[in-house]
């Protein structure tokens, strides 16, 4: 990346509605099921703080809600706290967009960090690909594919 920013884009198509997907992204009873027990604690208002909490109470990430436009767009300022080498990569920015398309919803996650070669995004919470595969599976079939976070 020539501008020194690491950008990651994740896209999945889920056969559900924007409202159901929005609920799955923002409500703890849903996130716990596909995000390896994680809950996001916030009131989902622009400017409000949020924190990511593991089942044992450990807060691994925090930030502020930059934009919240249900059920279309969510933007989060994102700071990792737990692993020093990842925390050193600086504050990240995560934009989540939902677009309805022919009976499905296109979910796009844009995660960027002003740090070349950043390792944060794959590392956090089992990595977006695994989280999104679980989310898709949960919404489409009622079951997650990976119950626990794989080692590493």
């Amino acid at each position: 990346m020539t501008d020194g920013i690491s950008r990651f884009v994740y896209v999945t198509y889920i056969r559900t509605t924007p409202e159901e997907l929005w609920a799955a992204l923002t409500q703890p009873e849903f996130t716990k099921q596909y995000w390896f027990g994680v809950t996001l604690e916030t009131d989902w208002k622009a400017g409000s703080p949020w924190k990511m909490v593991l089942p044992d109470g450990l807060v691994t990430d925090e930030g502020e809600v930059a934009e919240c436009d249900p059920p279309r767009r969510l933007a989060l300022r994102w700071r990792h706290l737990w692993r020093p080498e990842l925390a050193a990569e600086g504050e990240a920015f995560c934009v989540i967009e939902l677009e309805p398309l022919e009976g499905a919803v296109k979910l796009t996650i844009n995660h960027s960090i002003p740090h070349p070669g950043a390792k944060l995004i794959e590392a956090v919470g089992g990595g977006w690909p695994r989280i999104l595969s679980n989310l898709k599976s949960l919404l489409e079939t009622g079951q997650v594919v990976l119950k626990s976070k794989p080692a590493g």
Partner: protein
Amino acid sequence: MSMDAVFRALADPVRRRLLDRLHARNGQTLGELCEGLDMTRQAVTKHLAVLEAANLVVSQKRGREKLHFINPVPINDIAGRWIGKFDAPRLAALAELKRKLEEGNGHD
């Protein structure tokens, strides 16, 4: 998004190489992806279109440039499909959720 499209896209060595290059450095332009490949721009464009149709590559406009990103979610879906066979979770909450979400939704 069909798994057939993902497997077809991955069946070609040039397309796997393009994915490798995006894995090494995400967010490249067509011009950057063409560098060092003994292929025409048109041929690379066609391969990228196949990868995009399979959702393995996502392109986004940044100003005047179009950047290409590797999207590992479909590969993970494939892994999950078979891993899930050996790790079938049985959570009571999920059965209830399945029932609720499938009301009025068509599933195959």
